[in-house]
């Protein structure tokens, strides 16, 4: 009984959140004269979009590292697979020659966008429907390709222990990056060059006949996608399989002795995590509006790992909170540190391009050293927890340290 009540409340909260996002995105066009933060060009929405995408990736990494205890550093590689799969499948036929101009057009002679447009038409509602279908199918394939690849490399790699597994997966990501940059595959991957012109979040904004935006959905879409995927991961973690994963994390030997097949379950976790990383990669491509192997370096994996750790290894809500804090700090709140600033005629010392990242890394070091359990530890944000927090503490205090220990 209690359970259904909680599910109901969670669903309500998610629906509420999505509604708030739509409101937030559109409020500036409905009520003029609001502060600049609410304008659609505000950095707020960049943070929200990137945060949504990254939180999915962080959660998928947490599934592997936090819940199954597999120390994998292949995240960027699977994102790359996802991003490329999505991009290759959805670059419209009309743009292919331009995008693949170095290779005289693409070897992939179809595009999901055109495919669905030929079914539903390319204007008005039909156009919107075909966009949704193309993106959906593209994302699904992105996940599947990443999952397939994970299944292939899982057999040799998952037998390795801790650090060896980490370095092997990191290596695989690097190998993937090289393969995708290989000129010989150019007609498919565009060599090492950028893939672009595929549908992005901005394409989901509903426009009227004159091309004016009527309803903005470009932040709502990544949120919806991320929420669905994270919900699936949460369902998995709370299922019998999720418990088996945790058993493997806590004690492999005991898990095996209780009939849990290590290989099967590690593989399952690896493949599922990779699937969602692939989906995350596709969303990332939609967010930055391009796909290029260069972006998916080990630095990206480290970044996501840092997010997971800051949020709390083994905590989904921690990963999500961690992501938004991380993205907001790096993209928005600390940006002023990069600009040379004068107060009157006094030039504020130290402030110039690059200082933001220095401060940011110092903050990260402080968190890592002094709050090594992360924001949430391995606890989850729960209704009871929020209630307790509101009662016990003054609601003002919301720093990461609020829940230490």
């Amino acid at each position, binding site marked *: 009984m209690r359970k259904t009540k909680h599910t109901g409340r969670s669903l309500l909260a998610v629906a509420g959140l999505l509604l708030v996002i739509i409101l937030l995105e559109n409020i500036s066009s409905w009520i003029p004269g609001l502060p600049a933060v609410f304008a659609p060009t505000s950095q707020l929405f960049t943070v929200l979009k990137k945060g949504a995408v990254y939180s999915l990736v962080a959660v998928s990494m947490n599934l592997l590292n936090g819940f199954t205890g597999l120390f994998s550093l292949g995240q960027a590689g699977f994102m790359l697979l996802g991003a490329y799969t999505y991009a290759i499948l959805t670059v419209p036929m009309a743009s292919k020659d331009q995008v693949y101009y170095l290779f005289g057009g693409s070897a992939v002679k179809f595009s999901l966008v055109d495919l669905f447009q030929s079914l539903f038409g390319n204007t008005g509602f039909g156009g919107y429907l075909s966009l949704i279908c193309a993106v959906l199918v593209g994302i699904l394939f992105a996940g599947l390709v990443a999952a397939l690849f994970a299944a292939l490399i899982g057999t040799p790699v998952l037998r390795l222990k801790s650090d060896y597994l980490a370095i092997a997966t990191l*290596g695989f990501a690097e190998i993937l990056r090289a393969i995708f940059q290989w000129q010989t595959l150019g007609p498919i991957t565009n060599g090492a060059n950028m893939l672009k012109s595929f549908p992005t979040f901005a394409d989901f904004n509903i426009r009227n006949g004159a091309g004016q935006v009527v309803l903005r959905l470009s932040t709502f879409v990544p949120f919806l996608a991320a929420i669905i995927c994270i919900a699936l991961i949460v369902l998995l973690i709370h299922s019998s399989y999720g418990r088996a994963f945790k058993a493997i994390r806590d004690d492999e030997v005991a898990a095996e002795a209780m009939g849990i097949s290590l290989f099967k379950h590690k593989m399952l976790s690896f493949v599922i995590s990779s699937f969602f990383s692939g989906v995350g990669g596709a969303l990332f491509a939609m967010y930055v509006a391009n796909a290029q192997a260069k972006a998916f370096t080990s630095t990206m994996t480290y970044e996501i790992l840092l997010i997971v750790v800051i949020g709390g290894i083994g905590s989904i809500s921690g990963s999500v909170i961690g992501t938004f804090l991380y993205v907001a700090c790096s993209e928005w709140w600390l940006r002023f540190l990069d600009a040379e600033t004068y107060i009157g005629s006094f030039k504020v010392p130290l402030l110039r391009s690059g200082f933001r990242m220095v401060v940011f890394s110092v903050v990260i070091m402080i968190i890592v050293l002094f709050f090594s359990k992360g924001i949430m530890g391995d606890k989850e944000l729960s209704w009871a927890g929020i209630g307790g927090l509101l009662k016990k503490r003054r609601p003002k205090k919301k720093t990461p340290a609020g829940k230490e220990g």
Partner: protein
Amino acid sequence: MEQLLSAEYIVSILLSGISLGGQLALIAIGYTMVYGILRLINFAHGDVFMVAGLLGIYISAALPMYIAIPVVIALTIGLGFFIERAAYKPLREAPRMSVMISAIGVSYLLQNTATYITGGQPMTYPAIDALTRTVSIAGASTKLVVIITPILVVVLIVLLTTLINHTKIGMAMRAVSKDFETSRLMGIKINNVISMTFVIGSGLAVVGSILYFTTYPAITPTAGAMPGLKSFVAAVFGGIGSIPGAVIGAFLIGICETIIKGLPSSWNVSVFSDAFTFALLIVILTCKPTGLFGEKATDKV
């Protein structure tokens, strides 16, 4: 194609491969020693190497070379020591993952600070006359550094092995890497041993940085990342914790990499020069999960 088979070309490729391997070996030792003792992949090691390069630039601009080099060595060793004390020591009791994250954090901090100071632009390493002189071997002209590197590496490794096998601190190091807890109980000053490891590792990294950046004179904030990762792979490849393993791994990787880069352009394979390192690693790990010279660890049930 045929031109590529000329003796001159092959010799020049092999020479630069050996010299790259030697430079990687010096970094790899730092990785492998730290791992042997702390079971920590010290991701910041490659960046210490980069910082050593930057220090070389800034200090040699102010001081004559023969003073600058010892100063750079001292400062980098100090940096290595400081990093251990500030970022790793407080986490000695924490899960291994935390320490590794801390290492990634330090790496991030060093790179970003370097970006801030240099503006992210490549800095040019000063030419050290004794190393940059051109010599000619089997018709292939090359810098003296290419010849000096492997010799210096061998000398340093002999010194290091002597230190480890025949001194008290070396014995302590071996003991700690065998069994951390017991060594502590036996009254070995763990922290001193660990600091010493970092000092040696950083010291070798400076020498590596001088040789490396003399050969490839541009230093960007990320200049340490790839050599660092490759050296780590070399260390894993040879069986992490084993010094001869790391050195052999490094030479192998260095040579393979330059050979791949040297293959005919029409094959389009030079993009795999880094990837090949990792492919090699994965093959080794799947055949022999603990590397070439790694010790097999059995879990106690």
